[in-house]
């Protein structure tokens, strides 16, 4: 089955959670006295950032599994996780820039550690796909990509540490601050939004995995039915290839 009932249930759960989170963010959460209405960006920007960074770490964990077992499915899982986190990361940078413009009057502030450290992580991972593409041998490509994913994945927690160690508190602090952090009526929409974003990530990850696996199975089926000549050579690609039987 290409897309099973579990994936359908996951998709529905994602949609319901995201809708509820956004409804609470706009109609339940109170207006922030300091930032006003523009603080609503927080409910989409922060969960997206956390999930993107966790996705990079998840890619690193799968890369460790790939290096341990040499099973190509873990390389594919790592590749899809990083691919999705890059998309969310681009979203974080754009929504963050919009928030910065609305709040500080600038699209980007270079002396803000949170922004710059996230940009460094994003740019680091932006080299992942070109790096894969530059290696022709598929086995070597998978191995080098896994080493990259593990190393870069270990670098990600530095982003959180940089935020905590930052002295210039230009970027708004919301958790565990001296004045109590996030108010209770803002916590529920935030946590729900975080849950929704996590579900969205898992759903898209599973769709992408199903798509890649189906593509490999179709290729295998075509080879069995029409012979090797009917299947075009894969050529150089950044995407991992699953073994076809």
């Amino acid at each position, binding site marked *: *089955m*290409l*897309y099973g*009932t579990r994936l*359908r249930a996951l998709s529905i759960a994602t949609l319901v959670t995201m809708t509820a989170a*956004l409804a609470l963010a706009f109609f339940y959460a*109170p*207006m*922030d*006295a*300091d*930032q*006003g*209405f*523009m*603080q*609503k*960006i927080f409910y*989409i*920007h922060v969960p*997206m950032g956390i999930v993107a960074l966790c996705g990079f770490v998840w890619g690193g964990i799968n890369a460790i599994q790939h290096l341990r077992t040499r099973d190509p499915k873990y390389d594919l899982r790592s590749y899809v996780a990083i691919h999705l986190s890059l*998309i*969310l990361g*681009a*979203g974080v940078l*754009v*929504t963050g820039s*919009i*928030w910065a*413009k*609305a709040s500080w009057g600038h699209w980007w502030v270079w002396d803000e550690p949170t922004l710059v450290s996230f940009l460094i992580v994003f740019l680091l991972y932006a080299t992942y796909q070109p790096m894969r593409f530059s290696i022709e041998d598929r086995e070597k490509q998978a191995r080098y990509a896994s080493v990259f994913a593990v190393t870069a994945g270990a670098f990600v927690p530095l982003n959180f540490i940089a935020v905590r160690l930052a002295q210039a508190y230009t970027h*708004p602090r*919301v958790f565990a*601050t001296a004045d109590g*952090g*996030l*108010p209770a*009526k*803002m916590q529920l929409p935030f946590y729900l939004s975080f849950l929704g974003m996590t579900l*969205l990530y898992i759903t*898209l990850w599973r*769709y*992408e995995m199903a*798509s890649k696996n*189906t*593509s490999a199975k*179709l290729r295998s*089926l*075509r080879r069995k*039915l*029409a012979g090797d000549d009917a299947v075009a050579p894969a050529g150089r690609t950044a995407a991992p290839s699953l073994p076809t039987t």
Partner: protein
Amino acid sequence: MILAQTTNALPDNTGYVAAAYLVFFALVLIYVVIMASKLARFERELTELNDLADERFGAGAPASRDPAPAPEEPARR
């Protein structure tokens, strides 16, 4: 972050908030469109392979390992 009393005043910076949410929804929409186009390609390839199997093994051959759903049954996705 300081909590304010609920107010009926018109929200400020609505455009920026709308832009940020639009960026997010656009990203998800583009992803869904790409997935839909991939699904359409898979369906085309499956039809093609089904025809190929019919040609090779004959339309009357047992279809126990046929990857495509039977025409009278709705495809489960």
